[in-house]
């Protein structure tokens, strides 16, 4: 039933990959995914990916961390068991605020960092026991794969174009 084919084009250099990505998009084909061994600057822009929303997540996780830390310290140090340290006033959170800043900061960073990492892993579905989506293990070493999904009728044209753009190997499946 499927009249779509997956084309995996293997490249040996990030500059060649970048120009190939730009050419392919200029020719009007949509790039499904690119697998690289290291982050390539400007690739997301060249692929036409939407801007990441992880910054919004980071902000929300950070705010959660700030609130949790504040609540925790207020409950422990002020409300439940007022603790006097070094003669500092302990009847209101506000008066002792400089002492609470480092923990608030740490907790904010902790929640933002862990939240972002977990969100990333879940969103990309990189979890223990999940089979890898990577089409070629060499992309974890020194090769780059551009993955395209095209109609069966376009396959020959695309393969020719990709080869011309400098691909070392092209696989169609």
């Amino acid at each position: 039933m499927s009249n779509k084919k997956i084309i995996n084009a293997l490249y040996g250099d990030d500059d060649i990959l970048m120009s190939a990505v730009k050419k392919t998009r200029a020719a009007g084909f949509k790039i499904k995914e690119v697998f690289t061994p290291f982050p390539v600057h400007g690739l997301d822009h060249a692929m036409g990916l939407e801007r990441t929303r992880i910054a919004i997540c980071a902000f929300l996780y950070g705010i959660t961390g700030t609130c949790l830390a504040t609540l925790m310290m207020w409950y422990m140090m002020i409300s439940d068991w007022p603790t006097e340290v070094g003669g500092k006033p302990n009847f209101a959170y506000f008066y002792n605020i400089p002492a609470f800043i480092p923990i608030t900061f740490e907790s904010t960073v902790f929640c933002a960092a862990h939240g972002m990492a977990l969100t990333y892993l879940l969103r990309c579905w990189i979890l223990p026991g999940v089979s890898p989506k990577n089409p070629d293990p060499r992309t974890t070493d020194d090769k780059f794969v551009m993955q395209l999904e095209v109609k069966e009728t376009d396959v020959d044209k695309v393969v020719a174009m990709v080869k011309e753009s400098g691909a070392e190997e092209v696989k169609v499946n």
Partner: protein
Amino acid sequence: MQLNLTYTFPSKLKTTSFVLMGLGLLLTILAFVFDHGPEGAAHGEYNHTHFWANILICAFFFMGIGLGATFFMALKYASEAHYTAAFKRVYEAVSDWLWIAGPILVLVILLGQFHVHHLYHWMDPSVYDTASPHFDNKIAAKEGYFTPWFFWLRTAGFMFVWMWCQRTLRNRSLLEDQAGGTLNHFKNVKTSAIFLVFFGFTSSVAAWDWLMSLDVHWFSTMFGWYVFSGIWISAMIATLVIVLYLKDNGYLEHVNESHIHDLGKWMFAISFLWSYLFFCQFMLIWYANIPEEVTYFQNRLETNGYKFMFWLVFFVNFALPMLFLMSRDAKRNRRFLITVGFIIFIFHWLDIYMIVMPSTVGRNPGIGIFEIGPFLLFLGGFIYFVMGKLTKAPLLPVNHPYIEESKHHSI
């Protein structure tokens, strides 16, 4: 494409800088003439402390811009950064300002040694004399450190080495334009590495000598870094604003959005460094609450009426860059950068004001002609000198080994 490599100092900007200097000088003279000191002070007993404190604030703040730019220049050589090559001439020109502002600062302090002003309590010889009613055993214990020959060895020595390193780096950079090759570049890398090590120790000690010793009974090991981060950000703002100004006027074709973004990142990041050091110093002292340590904050928060200004300086210098420069788009937007840059530039001057004023003048004198006069005078001089220096060399270091990389800088 014909590149616009030579900067011509437009007469309009020249006039502006002269107006600033003239107005500043007028206000400074007026301030000096009408400065009669606190009411009831007998004639001849008042040493124009308010006036001299402001001269010291501006001399230090503006010296810091030149020194910060020198540090940045050395940092970029030592780390072999490529992206800065496209706007290298700008911070080089700013660093040349050290040759004007450095000697001015040393001169201002030297006047204290000759008792023209009494900003530094420990420069009075009677505090070391056990027979004198002014004897102060806390200062007398530091006599070895403040002995004039040792103090002046440090002050003159540090300034001399900094200025010498600046001149060496700049001259080799100019020589590279003529000679080509990489020899001068790698010589500069070596000089920069040595300068950075020297600067790392001496910037702290200089901050103790010139600013912390105003509160001679007080000490803080965090103080040197705190002052240093302040001068560094002032230098970055000056560089960024001049780069944007030159771009607006059709120069620096090779400076693209990524370069601006990187300079914006510096401004953002060093604001955090400064806030971090400010808060570290405050929080540790506040928490430990040891009488000999809290005097500094006592003078600023409890007595003398600086409380509002003290916290304002911290919140503006911390919150403004954080809120307005956090996003990537804001760091590429010249309107955001210039607005935030100008405001925190003023507030970093106010930070030096917060260091000097409570220790010298005492009660909060507010902001008036005493403060504005010297500031305008120095600002006008700074603009005139730095813009003049920009005309002296091509705006693009054509033979810099990383110039091609810098032209294609993209993040």
